[in-house]
């Protein structure tokens, strides 16, 4: 068994009540976390060919919940847990997608001696999975179904802990002891209702918010997975891990351009653990970076006004309710933290629109234009529209979607499906009122962060990856060109091509070196390969690493080498990232993905597509010179996007016509078994 890995994965079949053990070694070539999860999904869900992969609520759905080798080793920010499968959230089709979450679940999984748990089948009654070190049991959740996520976790902790008094004594597990509480991943009423807005919750405020995987738990009658461990994670060189940590904390890693403090905590994933716990809505240092959008007091705070103490208090209670119901604060948010002056914006909110939009905002929009309300064409009952944005409204919203009453039934299906039901989908995607760039994913960054936008398209929704957002920002103390030359050195294996950072979006330069050029394809590919390995499989929080202005990729390699003892170079890890990304592509292809399906929502091709940017905008090369520009007027060209796709497919070794990986590409990664299945089903790239 290699260092860093627990060595085994629990496979739990809820239909047959069987628990079997899979060897981690079989999947180690995929790194860990998501990479392993995707490979397991291929082996158990795709390769057998017994399921068309269309319905996420099908009992044959296989849900790998995986951690990486760096989890539970003291490496900061690397304890995240990945979940992947067919996402109920994406639109128009339920696509293969993934999410991940922080908190302490991943670390505890490793301490219990597991690299993950794979859930398949469907229980015939509500159940929860109870993991205590080596023991894995399927328990009845009859007393838990219907309860909120906090109550559920409390009850499970009591059941696992027996008479132990948490915080006051050690709990004995055979001959070992722990002061830890079980870490529990669970759903609330929103997940039980199979709402596509359902998140998975662990702790008080940590959520897997992307993908709607809480609804898959609900469909499987799975209320929770609890894990408690008192074991050891072995590593190659503990001294080197701690040395790297201190290097990061005290000099080598003076992080200046990122969200994340260099000195992140290690027992959990969260580099964003706040230095002052009192400022947290949640307890024990937990904070939700993105779900705080739910906190925003619309029209006052988010649009620049001050938030009163009462409003802040109400927002806190609303956020607590969100977590207890188990809804995705991202999908359901009312207003993002950022608003922007956007040409062509809907004519309200002072012509500003939120850069990030969710279903709460969309309700408001429809109400303002007279489409939605009491007795209107779209009947808003039971929502108290006059209280929109207030605590009472948000509680009514959560209650309505979890019970699927009145408008709640449509809203529980998510923004896109609700809009389709109400006959507004096309016009609102055209105008940008529905600011969802591709695959129905809740809007986040669009443009001018072009690599982010392309990642929506090539993936299945919000990439939620900030690795280049700050790195390409306006530099201090050096010219744009000087900064980009330095940055390009880190772009292994596409190093030294500074034009990959060119965001020129119109005119000849856009095709020559800008958004629609082969250079941009390299930047997008690098971001996916890096994220696939380092963020999703080694499970570093993406807000933490990469930090390309300073310590990346040196710090990643220090930790990786010290824990695993592997001799891989950074280029080797990027190659594994590309392999994972290619396997992900293969799964999508088997599901139906092709070139034709990869198109942006119409608003991305017209003025208004661009939102705000930070750090002085993006670098643009025109007329032989580099400059930084916030590019508020940026939008995409349809032919340009098609040209970009051609360059991109070629770079990845996918065929031009369909975007399907070729046999040569797959076998180059040792994925012959994948190529054989694709060929057999007529899906192999020519």
């Amino acid at each position, binding site marked *: 068994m290699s260092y860093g890995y627990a060595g085994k994965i629990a496979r739990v079949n809820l239909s047959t009540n069987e628990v079997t053990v899979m060897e981690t070694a079989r999947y180690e070539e995929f790194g860990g976390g998501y990479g392993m999860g995707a490979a397991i999904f291929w082996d158990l869900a795709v390769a057998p060919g017994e399921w068309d992969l269309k319905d996420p609520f099908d009992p044959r759905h296989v849900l790998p919940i995986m951690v990486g080798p760096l989890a539970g*080793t*003291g490496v*900061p920010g690397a304890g995240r847990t990945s979940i992947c499968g067919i996402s109920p959230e994406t639109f128009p089709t339920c696509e293969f997608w993934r999410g991940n979450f922080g908190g*302490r679940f991943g670390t505890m999984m490793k301490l219990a001696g597991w690299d993950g748990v794979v859930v398949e089948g469907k229980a015939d009654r509500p159940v929860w999975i109870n993991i*205590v070190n080596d023991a894995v049991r399927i328990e009845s959740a009859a007393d838990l179904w219907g309860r909120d996520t*906090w109550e559920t*976790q409390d009850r499970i902790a009591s*059941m*696992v*802990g*027996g*008479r*132990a*008094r*948490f*915080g*006051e*004594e*050690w*709990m*004995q*597990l055979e*001959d*070992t*002891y*722990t*002061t830890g*509480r079980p870490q529990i991943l669970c759903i609330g009423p929103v997940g039980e209702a199979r709402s596509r807005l359902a998140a998975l919750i662990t702790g008080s405020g940590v959520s897997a918010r992307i993908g709607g995987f809480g609804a898959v738990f609900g469909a499987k009658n799975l209320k929770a997975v609890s894990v*408690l461990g008192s*074991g*050891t*994670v*072995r*590593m190659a060189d*503990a*001294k080197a891990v*701690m*040395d790297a*940590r201190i290097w990061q*904390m005290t000099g080598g890693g003076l*992080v200046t351009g990122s969200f*994340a*403090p260099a*000195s*992140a*905590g*290690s*027992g*959990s994933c*969260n580099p*964003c653990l*706040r*230095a*002052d*716990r*009192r*400022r947290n809505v949640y*307890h*024990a*240092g937990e904070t939700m970076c993105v779900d705080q959008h739910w906190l925003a007091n619309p029209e006052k705070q988010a649009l620049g006004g001050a938030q009163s103490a009462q409003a802040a208090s109400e927002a806190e209670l609303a956020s607590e309710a969100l977590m207890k119901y188990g809804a995705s604060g991202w999908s359901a948010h009312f207003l993002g933290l950022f608003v922007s002056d956007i040409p062509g914006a809907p004519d309200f909110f002072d012509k500003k629109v939120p850069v990030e939009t969710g279903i709460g905002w969309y309700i408001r929009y429809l109400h303002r234009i007279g489409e939605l309300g009491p007795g209107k064409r779209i009947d808003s009952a039971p929502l108290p529209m006059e209280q929109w944005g207030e605590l009472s409204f948000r509680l009514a919203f959560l209650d309505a979607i979890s019970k699927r009453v009145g408008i709640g039934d449509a809203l529980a299906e998510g923004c896109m499906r609700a809009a389709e039901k109400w006959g507004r989908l096309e016009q609102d995607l055209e105008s940008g009122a529905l600011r969802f760039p591709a695959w129905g994913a809740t809007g986040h960054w669009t443009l001018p962060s072009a690599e982010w936008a392309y990642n929506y398209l090539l993936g299945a929704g919000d990439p939620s990856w900030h690795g280049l957002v700050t790195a390409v920002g306006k530099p201090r103390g050096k010219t744009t060109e000087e900064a980009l030359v330095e940055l390009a050195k880190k772009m292994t294996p596409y190093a030294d091509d500074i034009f990959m950072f060119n965001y020129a979006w119109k005119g000849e330069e856009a095709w020559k070196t800008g958004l629609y050029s082969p250079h941009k394809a390299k930047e997008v590919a690098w971001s996916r390969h890096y994220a696939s390995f380092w963020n999703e499989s080694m499970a570093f929080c993406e807000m933490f690493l990469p930090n390309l202005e300073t310590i990346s990729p040196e710090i990643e390699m220090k930790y990786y080498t010290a824990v695993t003892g592997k001799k891989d170079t950074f280029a080797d890890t990027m190659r594994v990232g590309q392999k994972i990304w290619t396997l992900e592509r293969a799964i999508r292809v088997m599901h139906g993905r092709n070139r034709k399906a990869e198109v942006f929502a119409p608003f991305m091709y017209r003025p208004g597509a661009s939102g705000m940017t930070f750090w002085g905008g993006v670098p643009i090369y025109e007329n032989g010179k580099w400059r930084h520009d916030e590019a508020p007027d940026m939008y995409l060209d349809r032919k340009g996007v098609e040209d970009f796709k051609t360059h991109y497919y070629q770079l990845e070794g996918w065929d031009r016509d369909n975007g399907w990986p070729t046999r040569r590409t797959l076998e180059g990664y040792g994925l012959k078994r994948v190529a054989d299945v694709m060929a057999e089903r007529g899906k192999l790239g020519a």
Partner: protein
Amino acid sequence: MAESENAGTQGKVPRRKFLVGGGAALAAGAFAAQIPGPAVAAAQPAAGKVSYPASTGYIVYDSRLCWGCQSCMFNCSMAHYGEANPSLSRIQIIRDAPSFTKYPLDVVMSPCRQCVAPLCVQNCPTGAAHIDTGHGNVRVIDEEKCIGCKRCLQMCPQNPRRTVWNPYKKKSTKCDLCIDTPFWSREGGPDGDPACVTGCPAKALKLVRETPPQEDVAGYDVNLVPPRPKMPFGKPPTPAAKKPASKS
């Protein structure tokens, strides 16, 4: 399901409360040694009572600053054993106890106190738990001499206990201020850099030479807020918040 270590005390006076006021009575009843009182008394012991030279190093903490990240626990087990195992850590940071409690009771910090009157030392039948006079009088356990009787686990007056069971070696262990750390690049000990303190990103731990007040469990929970902190996020914490009651 797990077992409560103190299952036999259920329904009786909570161990924490009992020991804060009555540690001496319990120890005397359990083992023959006489127990000195709090720190002041220990410094000038009454005739006939056992006394020990005070440690020259103590780890104090600020429970308001702690992030609950458990870096100290990982560092402790890694420095001593080369493996990550919070159950082997000689400092315990407990979160969510009781469940979903908000600040300031959401995190409990539990480092070894290097007690002036160390019941682990006093009650060890083999002398494995002893005062390391060569290293600043730190209270340590000699693994070679430990017979795994778990007496020191039972006698530690703190909740949770600060003495730690090593199930792999079947021996007890405790905080040695990193005197014996084969996997730690720095020198430990009362004049050195313990791994937990050095690796704390929140600066919520500190090694001090002065003996903290021994009277109650909060004596080690001190204000460590730096004068002018530079925090990546938001406003820095201030020392004005009420300290958690009776948390050690």
